[in-house]
């Protein structure tokens, strides 16, 4: 006979509010194997856990059921509690009577009846639990960071500082990310390049950091501590060991192409570095626009290259590397405002996005910092800045607030006034300045730089002569207003990186409906994912500004450092297990396993008549198996089971719930 202890939690009023704790206790007492029942206001609290440990010892309990919140919340907490009392931590089951019951069923009678059923399920299941031990596996002491923006660079520097090797994979030819495109940064207006380039140079010179630019992650196998990642190093057509970055090749290259880094405002050559301070300062050849690749002629770059580093027949290279941990820092994209037909983006040249303005005002940008209108190059006198373009718009854009536009629009207003004494009209709905020094920055924009803030969304922008007429309503006055602007800047929304969901599927991490990656817990574990060993930093997890991004990068780096500094890693024991006595050796489980953890092996056996025979059976490599259980269903005879979720367990749970 088992001696099961059932601990029903009040969770303050979260459970007790709509579940009758006494009735649940009374019902639990009558369930098979239940020897002890107790309730507690806050079972997860220190006294709550102490009460469990006391009961285990005094009542000689050999199994524990905690009826409280979701196992995804506190299963580990209560495993440590039970372990602390000398009982194997896996002789524990959780009944989720909060998220799956009290919080969603207001009717107390039905809620209580369901809570009793959920407790009975846990009691029937725990009776079938067996003690399990955690196995330990070794850790590859090496980290991978996907994305070379400020998040990736900061995380790489922190990890390298802790003496652990790290590889940064960056899709574009240079690290730096979107921050490299910015001119000044709020709220201190210090120049983006001045604070970013030193970090980029540190990253390049740090022995522990390997930069793999112009490369992408192709495939990820394995699991925490033992990831095997295939990286595609795209053909650069430049031998980086020989190239000195002297720049003769791109000065001689005849092919002129619109520069992605300058968002089409500036041009670049077919062989190019995206921006002057690029790290590594080694060019790549853009096969789509290179005259040689198109027509087989030209080869100017090769002719003029003093170090002979150009090689046209270089091919993509697939490299396989082993890592213990991965940080995803792939950043964001600016939303393309073309769905706003009424703002004429793409139709009127002088309607530009915030990032495009950053390139205009940037001293190392295509216009050397002169804010020249794209249409006729004149300096704008009146500038309209439209907030929330795409953001907070379920109809044509995205439902959420992009968090950074209010601040960078205030910055643009200040820069416009400071540099060319232009007058900014900022059409806003709310000016959100939540950070330190942010409200003061907004005050400067209005008081010192005389930006006119008009509360109301612009309905339409149209060309009239060489002016752009913006129709709005000053909702504070209740009057229609019109501004004839020389330049219109759209504070366009911050959205997910292109192909974010594809990378998530490659990594096996989840993402939300806006293709931002889902953190393990919104408040308590913001930089971890539900996939052990994979961490998040920066805008790929949701819109955020540079201070927050750098903070997250540090946090993710510290998680990786603590993971990689462990000598061994303890793995979950909830893996597949074969009952060799009844296994027929058909091996139909083998093709199911995504981790290739199952293989055949031969066992020797004496059979009737004294003869020893050899027969094939399935064998599970416990360190590769992640416990998904897909193989168990292919096993007709039930020889293959998953510890913690065995056939016996689930059949018992079904029976318990159907009583």
């Amino acid at each position, binding site marked *: 006979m088992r001696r099961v202890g059932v601990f029903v939690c009040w969770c303050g009023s979260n459970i007790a509010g709509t579940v009758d704790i006494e009735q649940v206790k009374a019902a639990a007492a009558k369930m098979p194997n239940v020897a002890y029942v107790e309730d507690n206001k806050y079972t997860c609290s220190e006294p709550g856990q102490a009460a469990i440990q006391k009961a285990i010892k005094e009542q000689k309990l050999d199994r524990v059921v905690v009826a409280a919140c*979701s*196992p*995804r*919340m506190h299963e580990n907490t209560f495993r440590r509690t039970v372990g602390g009392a000398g009982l194997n931590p896996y002789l524990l089951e959780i009944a*989720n009577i*909060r*998220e*799956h*019951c009290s*919080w*969603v*069923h*207001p*009717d107390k009678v*039905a*809620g209580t*009846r*369901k809570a009793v*059923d*959920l407790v009975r*399920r846990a009691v029937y299941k725990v009776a079938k639990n067996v003690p399990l031990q955690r196995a330990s596996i070794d850790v590859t002491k090496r980290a991978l960071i996907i994305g070379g923006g400020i998040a990736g660079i900061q995380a790489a520097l922190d990890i390298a500082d802790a003496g652990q090797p790290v590889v940064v994979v960056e899709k574009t030819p240079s690290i730096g990310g979107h921050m490299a495109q910015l001119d000044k940064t709020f709220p201190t207006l210090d120049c983006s390049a001045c604070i970013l380039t030193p970090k980029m140079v540190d990253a390049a010179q740090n022995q522990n950091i390997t930069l793999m630019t112009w490369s992408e992650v192709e495939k990820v196998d394995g699991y925490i501590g033992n990831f095997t990642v295939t990286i595609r190093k795209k053909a650069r057509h430049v031998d980086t060991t020989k190239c000195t970055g002297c720049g003769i090749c791109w000065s001689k290259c005849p092919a002129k192409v619109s520069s992605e880094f300058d968002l089409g405002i500036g041009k670049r050559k077919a062989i190019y570095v995206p921006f002057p301070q690029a790290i590594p300062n080694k060019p790549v050849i853009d096969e789509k626009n290179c005259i040689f690749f198109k027509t087989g002629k030209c080869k100017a770059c090769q002719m003029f290259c003093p170090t002979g580093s150009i090689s046209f027949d270089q091919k993509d290279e697939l490299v396989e590397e082993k890592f213990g941990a991965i940080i995803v820092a792939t950043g964001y994209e600016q939303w393309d405002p073309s769905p706003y037909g009424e703002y004429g983006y793409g139709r009127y040249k002088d309607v530009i996005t915030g990032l495009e303005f950053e390139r205009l005002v940037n001293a190392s940008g295509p216009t050397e910092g002169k804010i020249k209108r794209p249409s006729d190059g004149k300096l704008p006198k009146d500038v309209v800045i439209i907030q929330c373009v795409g953001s907070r718009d379920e109809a044509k854009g995205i439902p959420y607030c992009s968090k950074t536009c209010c601040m960078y629009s205030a910055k643009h207003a200040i820069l416009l006034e400071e540099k060319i004494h232009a007058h900014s009209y900022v059409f806003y709905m709310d000016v959100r300045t939540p950070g330190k020094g942010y409200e003061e920055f907004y005050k400067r924009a209005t008081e010192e730089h005389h930006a006119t803030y008009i509360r109301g969304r612009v309905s339409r922008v149209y060309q009239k002569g060489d002016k752009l007429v913006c129709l709005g309503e000053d909702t504070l006055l209740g009057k229609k207003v019109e501004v004839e602007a020389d330049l219109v800047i759209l504070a366009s929304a911050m959205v997910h990186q292109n192909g974010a*969901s594809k990378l*998530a*599927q490659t990594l*096996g991490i*989840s*993402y*939300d*409906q806006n293709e931002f990656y*889902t953190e393990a817990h919104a408040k308590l574990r913001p930089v971890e994912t*539900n*996939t052990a060993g994979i961490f998040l930093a920066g805008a790929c997890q949701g819109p955020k500004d540079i201070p927050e991004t750098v903070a997250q990068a540090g946090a993710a780096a510290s998680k990786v450092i603590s993971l990689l500094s462990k000598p061994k890693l303890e793995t979950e024991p*909830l893996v597949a297990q074969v009952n060799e006595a009844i296994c027929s050796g058909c091996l139909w489980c083998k093709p*199911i396993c*995504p*981790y290739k953890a199952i293989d055949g092996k031969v066992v020797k056996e004496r059979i009737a008549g004294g003869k020893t025979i050899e027969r094939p059976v399935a064998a599970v490599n416990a360190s590769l198996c*992640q*416990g*998904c*259980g*897909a193989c*168990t*269903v*292919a096993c007709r005879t039930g020889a293959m089971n*998953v510890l913690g*979720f065995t*056939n016996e367990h*689930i*059949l018992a*749970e*079904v*029976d318990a*719930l*159907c009583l």
Partner: protein
Amino acid sequence: MSVNEKAAPAAGPATNPTTATPAPEGWEPKIIGFACNWCTYAGADLAGTSRIQYPPNIRVIRVPCSGRINPQFVVRAFQRGADGVLVAGCHPGDCHYSTGNYFARRRYLLAKRFIEYLGVEPERLQVRWISGSEGQKFADTVRELTEKLRALGPQRRLRETL
């Protein structure tokens, strides 16, 4: 009817499960839910944290992956008296174990048709992909299934008569 099929009188138990006797007073359909830990169970938790109300007719069993849900568990649930079963997991491509739900999809494309073929009303077994951020969808699925089952009445086709 093929030559092998005999119309011999039923030698089994007295009550013929297909005669639709009306549901007892105050009857509430019972739904057994199998939910994968990484997506649907998390979605159900999200419905909880967002206080989305839905009928209390479902009891959820947590499994590591939808690939773990053996169709025999579903028939067992019907046998033990469940009126409806929900099998739910991650959207294809989102599986934490990368391929678990692809196998589940194949198994349940076949099993759902086969269970209906054996005479269980189609609405009783619902298979749905519900992600960790679709708390509302989880609640709606439970509500829809409960209403359909109320209309259908108790499940008697596979139920064990003691």
